[in-house]
């Protein structure tokens, strides 16, 4: 193998005072070297005139309860591995075009410290900031950086408000919105003629938002929510010696006396109870939504459209299957790479302009080109529906037509968009 394939940076942790949790690493793909950010400028550049494009990945620390299943424990390098793969892919192309992409990671910080750190990195030259942070942190960053020439790419939040009322001109989204996910699921359920839904909504605000997207989708595609029920059982600690004995009593009781329905749609984004529902409902019904049959931007089993090679590359790098967050981050960084190679530019202004233009198209292993919606900066993309092990189908479903792109049958379409920041460029 040639020496210029970049190495992973996951192991390079800076352990200085105050920075103990920041992994600041820089991938010099063309040199096969890993150096600290501070020495970036002094690195011996073999090629004068090489264009450097500096990308920052930001992950906010969130104190979330652990998921129900051991299988769903988040990986330490969630998102980061997707970023590393994209940087490798960008640099393999970049070495032919004398362009070099570097990655810095800021992670495991709470909101305030994180904002300051990102501002400091931006002042030192990062022009592209890929985000896996809470919606309010997305907005705080977008507002603080609004006078800089920096593009924020939201890879972690599905919040519709960020694409609607609170959209920002310096913000695009590779993560699908909740409404895209709900529409993708709804199209399939309607295609399947499972039109009567029993909606079970968890207590968190995210659960309520997901349920709202499901209600919107039901109206849009002609399904009927026969009943909505709040899930308000206190299940206690997720882990106790035993537990299934009580769960299998509680779940049927909870789902009893529902008007006749075809499918139970669950809204439990935090994964605190949804996985208890399949095989335990009072009536023998399938479960879909945030658990059961799930809509997502990616599935680790996808092999169509050349995805096998992509999955293989990822597993070789990260030693685990690719998750949706990794994919969203990969798409964000590949979008920057694609725009950079098309414009042959290093300036953020040119790259951003191309990424937003009608010319931009990205091949991303989903069988058709992906691009950004001109009315809110949302990436238009097919959505996969899968069970934990396999992809079941891909939406948009056959027969859901659109005058410009069938992909725009998913999520907020141009005529209904309430995003003002994008309305006047």
């Amino acid at each position, binding site marked *: 193998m040639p020496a210029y394939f970049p190495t992973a940076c996951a192991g390079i942790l800076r352990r200085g005072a105050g920075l103990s949790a920041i992994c600041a690493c820089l991938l010099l793909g063309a040199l096969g070297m890993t150096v600290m950010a501070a020495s970036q400028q002094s690195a011996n550049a073999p090629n004068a005139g090489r264009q450097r494009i500096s990308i920052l990945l930001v992950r906010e620390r969130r104190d979330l309860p652990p998921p129900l299943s051991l299988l769903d424990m988040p990986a330490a390098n969630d998102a980061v591995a997707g970023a590393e793969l994209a940087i490798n892919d960008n640099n393999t*192309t970049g070495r032919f075009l004398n362009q070099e992409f570097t990655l810095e990671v800021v992670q495991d910080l709470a909101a305030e410290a994180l904002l300051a750190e990102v501002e400091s990195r931006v002042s030192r030259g990062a022009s592209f900031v890929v985000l896996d942070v809470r919606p309010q942190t997305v907005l705080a960053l977008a507002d603080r950086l609004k006078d800089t020439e920096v593009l924020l790419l939201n890879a972690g939040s599905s919040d519709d408000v960020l694409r609607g009322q609170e959209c920002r001109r310096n913000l695009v989204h590779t993560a699908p919105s909740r409404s895209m996910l709900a529409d993708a699921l709804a199209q399939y359920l309607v295609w399947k003629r499972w039109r009567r839904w029993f909606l079970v909504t968890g207590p968190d605000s995210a659960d309520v938002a997901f349920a709202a997207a499901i209600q919107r989708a039901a109206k849009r595609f002609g399904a009927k929510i026969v009943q909505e029920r709040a899930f308000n059982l206190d299940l206690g600690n997720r882990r106790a010696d035993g537990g299934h004995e009580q769960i299998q009593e509680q779940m049927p009781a909870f789902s009893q006396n529902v008007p006749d329905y075809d499918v139970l749609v669950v809204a439990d984004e935090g994964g605190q109870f949804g996985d208890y529902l399949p095989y335990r409902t009072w009536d023998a019904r399938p479960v879909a939504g945030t658990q059961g049959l799930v809509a997502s931007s990616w599935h680790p089993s996808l092999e169509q459209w*050349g995805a096998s*090679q992509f999955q293989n590359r990822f597993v070789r790098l990260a030693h685990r299957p690719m998750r949706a967050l990794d994919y969203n981050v990969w798409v964000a960084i590949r979008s920057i790479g694609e725009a950079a190679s*098309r414009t042959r530019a290093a300036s953020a202004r040119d790259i951003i302009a191309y990424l937003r233009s009608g010319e931009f*198209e*990205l*091949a991303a292993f989903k069988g*058709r*080109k992906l691009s950004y919606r001109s009315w809110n900066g949302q990436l238009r993309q097919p959505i996969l529906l899968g069970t934990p092990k396999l992809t079941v189908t891909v939406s948009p479903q056959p027969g859901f037509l659109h005058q410009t792109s069938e992909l725009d049958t998913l999520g907020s379409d141009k005529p209904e968009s309430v995003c003002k920041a994008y309305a006047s460029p």
Partner: protein
Amino acid sequence: MPRATGGTSIAVALALTFASPQALHAYTVYVTNEKDNTVSIIDSNKLEVIKTLKVGQRPRGITLSKDEKWLLICTSDDNNVQVWDTEKLEFVKTLPSGPDPELFILHPAGNPLYVANEDDNLITVVDIGNNNVVAEIPVGVEPEGLGISPDGSLLVATSETTNMAHFIDTASHAIIDNVLVDSRPRVAEFTPDGTQVWVSTEIGGKISVIDPKSRKILAKIGFEIPGIDPDAIQPVGVRISRNGKLAFIALGPANRVAVIDTATFKVEKYLLVGQRVWQLAFTPDDKLLFTTNGASNDVSVIDVEKRRVVRSIKVGRYPWGVVVARH
């Protein structure tokens, strides 16, 4: 090393063709079935499958040795190339190929074989006689299509995620230039006179026609089919007739083959074939063109002169590659 009788039989075949259109020379068409691990063998006169061969795992790219004694098959999931005897239809040997070989091309002199390794960002150069790997050429992410100039001096490799056509000097194995094309380039095909390379870009939905001397893009050809979502028009297979006048382009999930006049770069006609049409092959007399239709498990047969689909032949599941032998 052509067979001594090769030229004679073509002459006889042509004579027969002129004497009586019914008595066409029968060519043999080999089709890989990706899902079934088989090769369907079709008689070009009867237009039916005469035999199905059980081969290695996930057969995709397929070609013939110059003397046509060997059938070479990319058996992707076995990570090698299988060699079969075309006369006895017996397995001969495997060639090393690097991991996950998908497409390959033979040097016009008959050796070596250039194999695209999608998983490893490499082109592997293999001597088909002594099984040696002659060289490995690093290219962009996910190399796929390979085209070689008629004089064998220039190899063009496409890389799907890097969106480039890499121009490689076959003497030194050095990349001499990289041409950025539209998204997800798949197949590269030289015109018979060697003055153009046609590169299909599946997600970009276009053909880039490149001058191999200046490496400038001479033209980009787009497609428009009434009633078909533009995103579903995904060009993959490219074949140019031996007289250089016509190009046939397989348009994937648009289920059409485009016929292009190479003089004007204009699409002359769209022919409706089976579903997800991927690869194409002419008969040696250029009278028929066979298309592999992955999603409908069949091969469409196009009458080149009449620009008409004349037959659909059921083959195995997910037909992928196709090659036609003289005998």
